[in-house]
């Protein structure tokens, strides 16, 4: 039976309550407008709002189901002074939310539980630490984030106010009720810590600027990034660390938040380098948006605040950064790696992380498994080349079938047709027999005989015959697997 999930002010005035059946609600008011509830969209909207709220503090947790899924926790410890205090922060938040058309109930307290209760039942209160008891005592037991069943039982037993529960001995409650009751009380009064599930992992270092005028231009954003990084660099230097991952958050005037993640291969504290990476990333977003209609960097009405967070750090030797300035090609082996990492990071930011790669050898006999692309700055030593086993310069991801004429079925090819062109074989070197890796599960491919084949024009191909004649197959198939220089 359909029920009412949410009501607006007008419906509430007509006496409709959340939980009424739809038929009852219709009976109460003739002109009721009904829309189907969309919890997924509500959830997404709450997440968007939570992202936006990171403009106040990086630690924002949207409420989950047990909290009612209709609000946010902001951990403003260390952030409220930026606004002149908690009251001012709440006023600012309320004003901005009102501008989005969101009437909000806000409260501040030293524990999440108390703040939740006050926001629901005594909005716009700010509570100093230690006052939870006094503030929550007169509130009804709904203030305790309990399940409906627990609430019902409590009411039946005659508990209506939180105050009635506070000083009762714990043992009978623990015996009679689920763990939940005592846990919620302890959380509200700060006797038990409450872990919050933040929408973004709180960064290690964070800097944020509110702008006088909304910004639209890319250059201006990069300029702000430069200043934000400047703010952070001192603390990074003090702690002897460098940034490995950064997140830039752009807070739009319309409440939207764009966040841009940037990873670097080596820890960095360089302001121009970080600014350059961000610039490249922004360029890429603009470009890909133009070509593929992917999510563009839509400044909309502009960005009113920009935050730079360092989400991952790594130890960094002091003086490592200074080497960049003193250009010395002969000394300082770290210098080259440093500059190389910067180049690779820059390319990867602009072109996409998969576009820049190195190759690493893999101990496998199968040519297509003998190497793999690796993370951008891992250098793997390669074994010396084996003269007896020539390998092509270019290899096909999938070997291409070829029609081959050979004098004897197990002999080298005499002529082959590949991509519609007939090549006469002048010389053939081989075979190099490569058996399947039988120890691998599911690998039951036939044995291959590889030939380095030179055609009459002097072009060199790498052909293989699949299957040992008469033992594995009677009609061996041929493939072109690679091309030699």
């Amino acid at each position, binding site marked *: 039976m359909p029920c009412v999930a949410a009501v607006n002010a007008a419906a509430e005035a007509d006496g409709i309550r959340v939980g009424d059946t739809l038929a009852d609600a219709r009976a109460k008011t003739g002109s009721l407008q009904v829309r189907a509830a969309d919890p997924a969209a509500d959830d997404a909207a709450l997440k968007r709002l939570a992202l936006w709220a990171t403009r106040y503090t990086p630690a924002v947790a949207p409420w989950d189901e047990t909290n009612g899924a209709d609000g946010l926790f902001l951990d403003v410890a260390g952030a409220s002074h930026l606004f002149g205090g908690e009251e001012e922060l709440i006023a600012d938040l309320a004003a901005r939310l009102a501008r989005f058309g969101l009437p909000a109930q806000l409260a501040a307290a030293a524990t999440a539980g108390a703040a939740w209760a006050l926001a629901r039942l005594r909005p716009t209160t700010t509570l100093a630490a230690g006052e939870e008891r006094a503030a929550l005592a007169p509130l009804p037991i709904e203030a305790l984030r309990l399940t409906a069943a627990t609430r019902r039982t409590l009411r039946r037993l005659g508990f209506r106010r939180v105050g009635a529960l506070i000083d009762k001995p714990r043992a009978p409650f623990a015996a009679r009720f689920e763990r939940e009751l005592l846990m919620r009380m302890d959380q509200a009064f700060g006797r038990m810590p409450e872990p919050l599930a933040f929408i973004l992992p709180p960064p290690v270092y964070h800097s944020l600027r509110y702008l006088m005028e909304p910004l639209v231009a890319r250059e201006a954003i990069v300029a702000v990034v430069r200043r934000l990084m400047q703010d952070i660099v001192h603390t990074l230097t003090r702690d002897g660390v460098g940034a490995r991952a950064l997140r830039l958050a752009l807070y739009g005037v319309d409440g939207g938040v764009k966040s841009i993640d940037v990873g670097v291969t080596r820890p960095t504290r360089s302001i121009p380098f970080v600014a350059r990476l961000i610039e490249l990333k922004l360029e890429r977003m603009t470009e890909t948006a133009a070509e593929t209609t992917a999510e563009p960097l839509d400044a909309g009405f502009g960005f009113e605040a920009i935050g730079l967070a360092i989400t991952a750090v790594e130890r960094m030797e002091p003086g490592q950064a200074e080497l960049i300035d003193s250009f010395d090609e002969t000394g300082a082996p770290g210098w080259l790696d440093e500059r190389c990492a910067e180049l690779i990071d820059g390319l990867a930011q602009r072109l996409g992380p998969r576009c820049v790669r190195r190759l690493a050898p893999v101990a496998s006999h199968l040519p297509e498994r003998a190497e793999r692309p690796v993370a951008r700055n891992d250098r793997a030593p390669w074994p010396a080349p084996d003269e007896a086993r020539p390998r092509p310069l*270019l290899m096909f991801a999938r070997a291409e079938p070829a029609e081959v004429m050979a004098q004897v079925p197990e002999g080298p090819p005499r002529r082959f047709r590949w991509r519609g062109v007939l090549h006469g074989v002048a010389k053939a070197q081989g075979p190099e027999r490569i058996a399947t890796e039988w120890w691998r599960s599911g690998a039951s491919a036939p044995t291959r005989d590889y030939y380095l084949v030179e055609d009459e024009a002097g072009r060199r191909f790498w052909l293989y015959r699949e299957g040992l004649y008469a033992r594995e197959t009677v009609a061996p198939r041929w493939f072109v697997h690679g091309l030699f220089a």
Partner: protein
Amino acid sequence: MPPSPVTIPGRDRAAIVDELRGLLPRMESGAPPRALPFGLPALDAHLPQGGLTLGALHEVAPAAPGDVPAAFGFLVALLARHPLRPPVFGKDRAPTNKPVLFVASARALADHGRPYGHGFHRLGLDPARLILVETQTAKQALWAMEEAVRSAVPAAVGGAIEKLDLKTSQRLQLAAGGAGLPLFLLRPAHTQKAEAQKAGAQKAGAQKASVQEAGVQEASAAATRWRIGAAEAARDRFGLVVRTRWHARLERCRNGRPGEWLVEFDHAAFRFSLAAALAGPALSRRPDAQPANLRRAG
């Protein structure tokens, strides 16, 4: 009486021209440019700086579409030569080995597979030095090449690109000159033909043939353009390939003359050499290689 041409006693015309030619590159850029020699006297003496100019753009194009691997191989062998040091493979590799960047747009090498690390080994380039950059568009590839060259981090930069106009090539040439890095570009085989056909369509039919024969020079700021064709490899007495061979035609050379050679690359010593017998079977096999040209190139 008409004025007679000025003659300087004791010096003949050829010597003066040579001297002037030597001055030209110095006029173009302040410092005398360094060069990357092939290690082949015949070839290096032919090039104006005694090798390929370091801070410059060099084009490598295949003679025919089927010669792309050959041209790519030639390019890789050149990439590996800078800095001039025999390659050391394995763990005790010199730590200062600079990386080598190869940039290709996704389409540039699509028909010929992907670069295979073990194959780079054979041409003297340690795959551990190699950084491969694959871009979606040619524009991005150009940007990546320019960025890499300007950073002056890699020892050399290679690239594969389908289209290149004069302005872009000038840009790349400038970037390479500024950083003192060689930039090798792999060009497709068909540009010349396409250009010739375009030019041929505009001109009269009689001229068309001659245009195609001469090959319309695509405007480019590159210092050299090489046209590479595959040639029969040198083998040892067991029939194993020991030296890869290429028909290398120097098609364009700033301040220099074109030429043609049969170049070998030794897979054991990792160096270039010239084919021992110029009148070998490899040359006579190719119908388009004319002995007259060869002699001129000497």
